């Protein structure tokens, strides 16, 4: 019998294959390390610049022309207000849209059209959303520079990302689980609520955390809306004007005095801490769900 696989040749090729194997392993390792090193350098710089400036007064003071007196209170509270609006609103609308598209809607040209648009919206620059917010919410609905106008704009901005991530998570739930539920006489809503959503929550949250993290660090749409950076009071309702941390930090970095660079670094640390806190909450919820099911 003629052999089609010449084993001596296979052995000859073996070295080259194994070298390639190791090269790629190293390549991917360096890719990981590169990102990590940059991150560590960045964090190191920010934290060293912020030391000495980050204290209780910094958290309790309103902005000031004098760097020593400048604080982040207005921006910190403003960011929390904004998140308190954006998170529930965008989650409800985003997850709702995803559930409708994945679980209810029959595949048609109309749903294809919506699907394509959502995917495209996810790539639209944030400044465009700012213009939309300015036209529709700030001017059209006369909400001005309020928390509400900014919240609605930001919700729209992160909505497509949440929809797409939630759809992926819902699609990853095996159909067998739905069948098992329907097979026992469960309604569609019972199946979604008790089987599909719990299984999809970890995925939905992972996508949503990324989307909300983007919202908390975003400035462009707020600049278009005309959100101020120098504010010495806190919003009392969603109709009041306010500012957020990235706007405040941006403003500080643009000041001529050397000291304001330190103030900005301190602001960045506060922003990072808030981000980490938000993520921790989401991860905590996710783990809770994973344990239960």
């Amino acid at each position: 019998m003629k052999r089609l696989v010449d084993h001596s040749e296979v052995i000859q090729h073996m070295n080259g294959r194994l070298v390639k194997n190791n090269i790629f392993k190293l390549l991917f390792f360096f890719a990981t390390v590169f990102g990590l090193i940059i991150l560590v350098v960045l964090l190191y710089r920010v934290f060293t610049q912020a030391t000495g400036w980050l204290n209780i007064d910094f958290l309790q003071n309103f902005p000031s022309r004098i760097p020593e007196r400048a604080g982040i209170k207005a921006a910190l509270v403003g960011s929390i207000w904004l998140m308190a609006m954006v998170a529930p609103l965008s989650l409800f609308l985003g997850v709702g849209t995803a559930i409708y598209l994945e679980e209810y809607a029959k595949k048609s040209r109309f749903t294809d059209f919506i699907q394509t648009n959502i995917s495209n919206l996810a790539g639209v620059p944030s400044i465009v959303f700012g213009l939309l917010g300015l036209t529709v919410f700030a001017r059209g609905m006369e909400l001005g520079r309020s928390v509400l106008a900014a919240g609605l704009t930001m919700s729209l901005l992160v909505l497509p990302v949440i929809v797409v991530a939630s759809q992926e998570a819902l699609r990853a739930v095996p159909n067998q689980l739905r069948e098992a539920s329907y097979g026992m006489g469960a309604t569609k809503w019972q199946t979604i609520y008790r089987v599909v959503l719990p299984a999809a929550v970890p995925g939905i949250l992972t996508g949503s955390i990324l989307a909300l993290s983007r919202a908390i660090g975003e400035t462009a749409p707020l600049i278009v809306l005309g959100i101020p950076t120098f504010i010495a009071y806190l919003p009392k309702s969603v109709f009041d004007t306010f500012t957020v941390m990235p706007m405040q930090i941006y403003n500080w970095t643009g000041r001529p005095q050397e000291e304001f660079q330190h103030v900005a670094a301190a602001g960045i640390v506060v922003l990072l801490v808030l981000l980490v806190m938000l993520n921790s909450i989401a991860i905590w919820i996710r783990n809770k769900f994973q344990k239960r099911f």
Partner: protein
Amino acid sequence: MLTMVKEKTIAPTEEKAVVYRTKELNLWYGEHHALKNIELDIYENEVTAIIGPSGCGKSTYIKTLNRMIELVPNVRTSGEITYRGRNIFDPTYRVEELRTQVGMVFQKPNPFPKSIYENVAYGPRIHGIRDKKILDEIVEKSLRGAAIWDEVKDRLHENAYGLSGGQQQRLCIARCLAIEPDVILMDEPTSALDPISTLKVEELIEELKKNYSIIIVTHNMQQAARISDRTAFFLNGEVVEFAETDQLFSTPADKRTEDYITGRFG
């Protein structure tokens, strides 16, 4: 020819109550004619096996019995299936109601990613039972009914995914029993299991038939011969032969049945 076979084979047991009566059932997936003029009666407290080669429509048929087939887009049916005298395609017959009477066990064990207890309690819960005591009782009774109680009684609140494949399938049977159905549909319930687990499930089916009517799709002919009272042989979307199992396997009336059960094709 079809009716001829039926008359000849079904005649001796007319006393048993009919659970499902299928008349001139046709089903299309889009343009594909998957079931052609199916005529079949399912009797109470019997195991009815449906055999046939892949793609013959046996799974499609069993999924039509509880209307699960409607989850597939572009499915059309004509004809009639009556369950206990009521046409299941009647618009006033709510599908949720039908499925409360007709439980289903699937090809691959598909427990929910929840605890063993929650898996079994799922059915009763969605039908509105909240009383913890009643739920406890249902869970124990169902798990005993599925012959898995002794294996899991000490870890009811552990995740069902920790069970072996065979145990998971019996858990799925327990979950199905928990809604106290009248009929149990089984779509190749042992095809993903090892021989020992298969044996356990088969013994269980033997036991369950005292209280339930069972319809089982299988591509394992020995299994059909071992556990069923009646067997239907499907080929290309048609019922070639439907007879008492002993008869169908010993003296098949149709040449194609004979070829199939003797392993000449399929």
